[in-house]
Structure formats: structure tokens, C-alpha cells
């Protein structure tokens, strides 16, 4: 990571830290949710933005993390930390297995295969409704929701836990994509055959990127269940596979902060427009169309191209 990258990332984290003390409780609560969703999108960005893998099935990994944590706490009575680690393991196993099969395809085939796996995951959650409570979902009891002694049911605990996860993932992925491994992923995205011609085992590298992406998405799912105390089948549905794609496209694919910017934009676009009209999805849709037309590389992607070429 270069000095400018590090300064930018640390600056953003400092602003987010200060935001809790400045913003009204409603917005700091929203920001905690946005940070967790941004972590999900950052995981997705590694696969799509950096490696060129357009997955439509990342809700499967988000849900694997979410249910990995929630079921182990609810049924197994596990404390939060081991449950979180189990959730990461679940996401790792699912992403590893899906990656082996889905990466045998490419392009539209890859999109369809990942979508089908996610739908199978969604149906599995419904099928085991006796444990998962299906669409209705289930709440995690307040008394078990603490991590390292931090009560994540309070606004402050939730916010700082979300910020900690966001910071770790931002800095780790920021370093990863600036490292030789990250440059290689970009090379694969730009021209897979050319990367192979240089001697890279493209299939293996794509699988590693896909698995890391799945694990980060799983971490976001587990954090969501822990911080907001709820797990439900909705999070395994197709719309939760589309959300990170939208965040990344809006914020800027292949930029470290683009997923966060996209998540903030989408969240508040819907939040604000729903306060004005009941047809808020129409407003959100129109805004998305305009943004796509005028900033085709997303907000930060366009900024990087036009003014700030150093932007990570």
C-alpha cells in the first residue's frame, strides 16, 4: 500500500470514528448497517471488481456466514467469538466448493451457475425451516450478543464493532490488491489468456480470489446477524446477491472505497426517496439509470479516471 492509499484509508476511518459522536442516533445506526453491507460489497468487489468474476450468487456466502453464526449461537449455545469463527469456516467451505464447480464455466455460464447455487442455498434455508424458521427468521437473544466484552446490542457497541470489522477488511483488502497477488488478479481480469501466457495458473488464482471474496462476504453475514440480532431467509435471496453488485457498480468496481460509497449512496437514496413518495423504487431506479449513463465507471472509478489517478 502506498503512503497516499494508507492516508486516505486511515482518513476515512477517522471520519467514520468521529461520525458516531457527531451524527444523530438514527444516522449512526444506519451507518453501522451500511458499514456491514459495505464489507459484504468489498468481498464481492475482490471477485468482480478485481478478478472480473461476475457472480450472481454471493448471497449464498453471506447467508453461510449469517447462519453459521446464528445457528451455532441459537442451537449450539456457542459464544459469539467461536460462532464467528465457525461462520468464517462455513463461508470458506461453501465458497471453496462452489468455486471449484462454478469456475469451470465463464461469462454468462458463471453468472447462471452461481445464481443457481445461491437459489439452492435459499431453498435449503427454507427446507430446514424447523431450525432456520424460513422467511420469518429468528432473533438472537440480547444477552449472548457480546464480543470481547463489548455489548453489541447498544448503539455504541454495534457501531464500533461494525467500524472495527470495516477497518480490518478495508485495510486488509487494500493491502491485498496493492500486493503482487492483487496486480495478478487485475491482469487476469484484463486478459485471462495473456496472464496464462505469462505463466500464471489462472484457474487456481481465480479460485483463491473467489474463496477470499466468499469468506469476507461470510464475515459480513455473521456480523450482520450478531450486530442486528436477526437471521432470516431473505438474506439468502436473489436480491442480496444483486445488492453488492449494485454497490460496487455505483461506487466504482476495482476501487477499494467504491463499495462503501456505493452502499452509502444506495442506502440513503432509498431512505430519502421513500420519505418523499411511495413510488420510491422509481426514484431510485431513475437515479441509478442517470448515474450509469453519466458515471459508467461508478463514482470513484470515474473520479480516478478523470482527476485522481492515484486513487486506490
Amino acid at each position, binding site marked *: 500500500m502506498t503512503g497516499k492509499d494508507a492516508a486516505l484509508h486511515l482518513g476515512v476511518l477517522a471520519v467514520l470514528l468521529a461520525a458516531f459522536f457527531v451524527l444523530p442516533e438514527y444516522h449512526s445506526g444506519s451507518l453501522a448497517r451500511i458499514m456491514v453491507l459495505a464489507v459484504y460489497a468489498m468481498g464481492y468487489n475482490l471477485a468482480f471488481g478485481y478478478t472480473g468474476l461476475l457472480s450472481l450468487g454471493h448471497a449464498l456466502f453471506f447467508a453461510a456466514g449469517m447462519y453459521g453464526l446464528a445457528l451455532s449461537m441459537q442451537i449450539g449455545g456457542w459464544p459469539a467469538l467461536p460462532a464467528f469463527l465457525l461462520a468464517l469456516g462455513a463461508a470458506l467451505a461453501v465458497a471453496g466448493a462452489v468455486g471449484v464447480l462454478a469456475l469451470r464455466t465463464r461469462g454468462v455460464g458463471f453468472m447462471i451457475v452461481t445464481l443457481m447455487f445461491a437459489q439452492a442455498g435459499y431453498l435449503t434455508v427454507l427446507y430446514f425451516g424447523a431450525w432456520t424458521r424460513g422467511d420469518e427468521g429468528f432473533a438472537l437473544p440480547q444477552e449472548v450478543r457480546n464480543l470481547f466484552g463489548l455489548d453489541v446490542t447498544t448503539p455504541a457497541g454495534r457501531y464500533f464493532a461494525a467500524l472495527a470489522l470495516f477497518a480490518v477488511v478495508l485495510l486488509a483488502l487494500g493491502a491485498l490488491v496493492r500486493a*503482487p497477488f492483487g*496486480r495478478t488478479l487485475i*491482469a487476469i481480469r*484484463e486478459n485471462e*489468456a495473456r496472464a*496464462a*501466457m*505469462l505463466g500464471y495458473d489462472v484457474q487456481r488464482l481465480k479460485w483463491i480470489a473467489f474463496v477470499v471474496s466468499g469468506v469476507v462476504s461470510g464475515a459480513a453475514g455473521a456480523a450482520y446477524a450478531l450486530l442486528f440480532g436477526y437471521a432470516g431467509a431473505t438474506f439468502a435471496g436473489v436480491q442480496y446477491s444483486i445488492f453488492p453488485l449494485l454497490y460496487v457498480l455505483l461506487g466504482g468496481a476495482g476501487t477499494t472505497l467504491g463499495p462503501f460509497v456505493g452502499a452509502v449512496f444506495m442506502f440513503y437514496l432509498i431512505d430519502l426517496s421513500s420519505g418523499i413518495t411511495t413510488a420510491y423504487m422509481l426514484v431510485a431506479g431513475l437515479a441509478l439509470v442517470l448515474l450509469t449513463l453519466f458515471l459508467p465507471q461508478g463514482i470513484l472509478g470515474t473520479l480516478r479516471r478523470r482527476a485522481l489517478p492515484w486513487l486506490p
Partner: protein
Amino acid sequence: MLEVQGIHAAYGRVRTLFGVSMTAKPGEITCLLGRNGAGKTTTLRAITGLLPVSEGTITLDGDDLTRLPAHRIAQKRVGYIPQGRRLFAELTVAENIEVGLMACGEGRETRDWVLSIFPRLRERLSQRAETLSGGEQQMLATARALCLRPRVLLLDEPTEGLQPSMIEEIRQVVLRMKAEGLIVVLVEQRMDAILSMADRAVFLDHGQSREAFIGNALRADPSILTRHLGV
């Protein structure tokens, strides 16, 4: 020595090579010649493993490359510079070179060697590849292939669309690689380039290798070229 023996290949169900054979030796430039669609680029893609070979064999110093995946062939130090350069456009010049070096575990020494061949790239290290001129892009594509420290260098029309000064620069690099003992296989359309560089030439037609000549025979009777290429 690179030996291609009677290879057949297809793009899906469309067969494109029907028995191509050629031999290329270290310290020589072997030109693959033929009209458009004769199978020149396809032959290079088959050698590099980008296109599966259904029949025939490809060996490098007796080592069978025929069924190896593309990345394993590259690891055998077979460098390929495709037509149209195909750079990693979003990466800088330095990152393009770094990606080339990392693939085969090459380091600073190779980087310095490559930049000594293309000093102009040293001035452009922090520039994104997509912002380079056509000639500079060709230099970078060549530099990236050289990062493998190749034993074999396959070049597909490296001077296409370049201005004369740049063509000469690329030509000098190809001759330098020959002098350093590399096996150079060159697909080229320009007669002056063929006549000035070829040590041997293999003519392809409709996916098959036809006649082969040594360079001196071509230079003694350039009409061979016009006869086979129809120019």
C-alpha cells in the same frame, strides 16, 4: 530446438489446422508466412497451448509441450507476443513488467535487463499502459514477454501499424534476441522485414504447411515470396 510435427487444431467444431510442421532453431529467426487465414496465428496459439492440439506433437528440446496447459508452457520459457499487444491496460508500465516478472519468479536483474533493452519504458514506469503510444505499447508487450527470460519468442506481426522509426527499433530487438541465442518464430507480412531477418521461412496455406526455404534462398529469389503470398 522447437519442433512442430503435423499438428491439427480447431476452434470449436471449425477445424483450422490440418497438419502443420515446422522446425525452429536457437539463434535463428523462423518466419511463418502465408495469406490471411492461412493459419499463422493459429499455429502460434497452438504452440502456446491457447488452442488445444488434436493431432501431432510439439516439442521443445525433446520436451513434449503438446498437451500442456498454457501457463505450464509459459513456465517452460516460451514467450508469446500476440497481435494487437493485449496489454493489461489499467496497470502501469511498472506493474505490467512486475506481473511479467512474478510469473516465473524473475527479479531485479531481469527487470534491469528488460529496461536496458527498452530505455524509453524506464521514463514511463508510472504511466498507465493504455496511455502509451502504439509503438510504446509494442515495446511493453515485448518487454513483458522478455520478463520470462524466454528460450522461445513467438511474435505475431510485431510491427503492424507502427511508424518506421518504431519498426526499426522493434527489428533491432528481434535481431538482438536472435543474437542472444533465442529461438525466434515470427509472423510477418512485410516483405522487407522477411527478407532482412528470416533465417528460414515456412509457408502455410489453408491450415497446412507447404514449402520451407532457408533465408538465403528467399533473398536470392524474392519472387518466391510474391508467388506464395500473392503480393
